[in-house]
């Protein structure tokens, strides 16, 4: 080890790999992965979120995990976004493409993608 910069480079490279264990992220993305969710295609959605969050370097801010049946099986795949101090946001009938848009607009930009929300109708 010859310099602090070298140490810092290893640290930065590794941080994204251990950050999962730290907790304390501001935003929590939870994908419904019960039988109904998986049948409706939740797995690719989950993977799209995990990959997208990593690609955009959001790992220190956003955690992605799964949950069981949310109860609205006809709307699966369902993705919930929890942010401390804010109301929970529920996206329904998600796809990989929609996930990319949520990452871009909501997770990065802080703007809820209204068209994917569950509607009252």
């Amino acid at each position: 080890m010859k310099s602090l910069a070298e140490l810092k480079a290893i640290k930065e490279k590794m941080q994204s790999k251990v950050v999962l264990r730290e907790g304390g992220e501001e935003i929590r993305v939870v994908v419904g992965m019960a039988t109904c969710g998986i049948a409706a295609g939740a797995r690719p959605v989950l993977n799209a979120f995990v990959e997208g969050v990593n690609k955009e370097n959001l790992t220190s801010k956003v955690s992605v995990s799964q949950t069981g049946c949310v109860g609205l099986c006809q709307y699966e795949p369902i993705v919930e976004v929890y942010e401390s101090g804010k109301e929970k946001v529920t996206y329904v009938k998600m796809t990989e493409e929609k996930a990319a848009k949520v990452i871009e607009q909501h997770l990065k930009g802080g703007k809820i993608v209204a068209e994917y929300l569950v509607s009252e109708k």
Partner: protein
Amino acid sequence: MIRAHVLICGGTGCTSSGSKAIQEAFEQNIANCGLVEEVKLVQTGCFGLCALGPVVIVYPDGTFYSRVTPEDVKEIVEEHLLKGRVVEHLVYNDTGAEEVIGNVSLNDTAFYKSQRRIVLRNCGVIDPENIEEYIAMDGYEALGKVLTEMTPEEVIGVVTDSGLRGRGGGGFPTGRKWSLCAPNKAPQKYVVCNADEGDPGAFMDRSILEGDPQCIIEAMAIAGYAIGATKGYVYVSAEYPIAVTRLQKAIDQAKEYGLLGKNIFDSGFDFDLEIRLGAGAFVCGEETALMTSIEGNRGEPRPRPPFPAVKGLYASPTVENNVETFANIPQIILNGADWFKTMGTDRSKGTKVFALGGKIEHTGLVEIPMGTTLRHIIDDIGGGIPNGKKFKAAQTGGPSGGCIPASLIDTEVDYDNLTAIGCMMGSGGLIVMDEDTCMVDMAKFFLEFTVDESCGKCTPCRVGTKRLLELLDKVTKGKGTLEDIDRMEELCYYIKANSLCGLGQTAPNPVLSTLKFFRDEYVAHVVDKKCPAGVCKDLLTFTIDKDKCIGCGMCARNCPADAIVKTDYVAPGHKLPSYSIDPEKCVKCGACIANCKFKAISKK
């Protein structure tokens, strides 16, 4: 892309309760479910809740599964990792909620809530065999800072200012130890890490080495820079095979990354480290005996002065610190002395790791700020005494320490408060005793240990402890007199005052402190010939209450000495004659009590 981490405890506790098999089961089930690309398995160090091992944590949820068996693994993988449903019946929950709903965060459990983890910060979080994970957790930043921005005097200044005191037992200020060694000129100086943890019931040093070995290497290099030493030794007991293997791997990796060796961080500072294995002799935990042992000689202490700071290992100036002390150093350098001083009491700063053992619900490892009350440690963090029994006393400092009686349960635990009541912090073993513990028997247990472990070099310790044990033995056999108690006390003070090293000087402490707080129990043994706790066999008589005995004969069938016979007496309301015990034949094994379903047998 990895989306979940499964952390499996690979500490000694969980390894012996089967965590290896669980790891294999996870590997297989994860492969079966096609999750290899998504889930990462990590073997970590001790989480602290050894009583509930083997322990598995799943991140990012932070779900804490306890007492996992290989059969449970399939369910965890298929339910939790595949479908995202927490396997609730396996989740550890002591938050007081009746039912686990969804997920219990580890930090909300009573066991973890009041802990403050500095020394154990990486234990159970990182993979101890991967230096890069340590670096991700700010590892080696402190060494980098020290070598590139600070002078040795400044390093010693920060450590002194932090108020850190030796965690091995004595509580000597670490900064002062370093500053005594730094000015001594010599061609070669040494840094030694004392990892020869020997107190029965203490295992914090082992857990640190197993869970976060890199932090010891980093701290020793910092110490080396501060005092001008280029060579270090870690003296660790060969009885800690997992710790030795992980430490050796850690040293090899540090060398590979250039964090040990020549010209570290291009600063011109060289530091090299080697492991020396101890054979498990308790006296080798004493600093001068330890150095003698590293030199290849029989582990015996030598007189001080000269102190190791002047003439230590190979007659060169040496700083020797304990594992837990070293583990504090990188954090103190990174966060500053003022940060460290915010924790703890007036004269004892920072945190202390305690190994909870004995009659307590949560056997395990906890790190708490100095000054936490004993009541809080036992009742809240430790989960109280099992089976609704009453707390009687806690033994700290192992065979060198003393006991804290129930009347002093609100004592704030720090170096000075413990010394004031005739106790000792020691390395942090905390053995909890309930009403079924005989204090004379307990003192005898620890004295048997020191008699075995005395190296024999000086007479007060070699002969004195042996005589003391004989007197104790006399008391527990009901043959003691009141004069014996006074003689024991006198002998204790003599041994303390005249022994060469810490082993002998502290060996009588368990006897002295039980005499101080539980003298009535000693008196009961010699005057009434009774053991109030019902432990000392020679003073017990087993009797059957003839009116409670229904005459089933279970006791007689299970008596190994044929000491139980049928009588002619039939209790009113019963059909069969009752039994009685022949005291001449009874060996007091207790098998009859264990087998009597009607609680008709008692020992007094």
